């Protein structure tokens, strides 16, 4: 009887310990990422290829905190975010940190509040409507996937660098 009682209590303690775990860790991204891919159009043939020539692509958001910027060396893929508090946001883009030539990307979108889990809480996802750009060195932009969520493997916008740049 004592042995049986000990087994029962041991099982009870194990189950209770497993049920009283604190908040589980959040294992998914909590910020929706908009992934840009820079492309290049050659003048003569019109062949499109992924541009890896941006020596130090720099993205600066138009926010109150002017010090924030994203810079990637020799990269054609850039991850930025959209403002959850507005239906429009703007980013300045330069091909190099030393460059004084900037283009501006303006994103228009709708915001959807999404419950991720009790471990992660809520996040804002987006549906891209349009993307506008200035044309100092950017030829055009194209939305290839309008759903912006926490999937970090989906590219959303292609940015075509001007052939003469």
């Amino acid at each position: 009887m004592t042995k049986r009682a000990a087994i029962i209590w041991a099982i009870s303690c194990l189950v209770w310990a497993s049920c009283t775990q604190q908040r589980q860790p959040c294992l998914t991204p909590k910020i929706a990422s908009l992934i840009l891919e820079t492309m290049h159009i050659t003048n003569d043939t019109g062949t499109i290829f992924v541009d890896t020539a941006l020596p130090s692509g720099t993205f600066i958001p138009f926010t109150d905190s002017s010090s924030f910027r994203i810079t990637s060396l020799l990269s054609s893929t850039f991850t930025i975010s959209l403002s959850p508090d507005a239906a429009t946001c703007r980013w300045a883009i330069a091909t190099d940190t030393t460059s004084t030539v900037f283009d501006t990307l303006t994103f228009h979108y709708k915001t959807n509040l999404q419950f991720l889990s009790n471990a992660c809480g809520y996040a804002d996802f987006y549906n891209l409507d349009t993307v506008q750009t200035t044309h100092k060195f950017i030829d055009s932009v194209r939305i290839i996937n309008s759903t912006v969520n926490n999937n970090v493997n989906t590219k959303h916008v292609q940015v075509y660098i001007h052939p003469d740049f």
Partner: protein
Amino acid sequence: MYRYIYILIFSVLVVCCSQHSFAQVNGTTVTGYPTVPDTLVVINSNATDSNAHIKKKDLAGHQLAIGVDLVSPITNALVSDKFGYEFEADYYLRNEFYLVAEGGWGGSNVNYTDLKYTTTNPFFRFGFNKTMLVRDNPKDWDMMLIGLRLGYANINKNPATYLITDSTWGNVSGSRPGTSINAVWLEVTGGMRVEFIKNVFAGWNIRGKFMMDGKSFANDAPLFIAGYGKGDKNAVFDFNLYISYAIRWDRKNMASAKPKR
């Protein structure tokens, strides 16, 4: 959906197999102890041997057991973000089948830095238990059981407040309105119950719980559903310790079944 069908079929097969195997053991002598037959055999004198009519009579009488879960109050005292209370009642039908009804209430209090809300819900479970132990005599009510339940809970999720941390654009906070969520789940249970004092049982149950149609509230899953467990899991395991009191009647049959010494 197929998963639930497989679980149901498996459970029915286990119950049927156990009933068949124990039917062959009844009325025999096991480990030297005389057993009391719980069947009354009536042979029609007008019939031949091949069509002898065998009529079974259950001598165990009636039993209604009402119990309370002891794990819930212990957990309530030690954990701050959820609470629950749970009761159970079972009634002996026949052939070692028990009709079971369970119920209770509880809730959760989510108080994280980025997410705050509370929930409350009552819950009900209905189903059956089948004991796997062969009775020593009709007064023997100890059980080693398996069972199946269908559970239901109506969860009242109160308005939630949230905070989204964004280092680029700044933090965003807001609130979401309260909702009412219905949850239905299937349970497979196993355990034991021993009468340690006359008419008083102690026992435990292990439960595998499988949410049905959990996707319907996946975007608003509560942290905790009393009677089920973690609201954002489609399959959970649970454990109960019950103490029960049994009410018995129809003692005439039991008295007549006393073994002759």
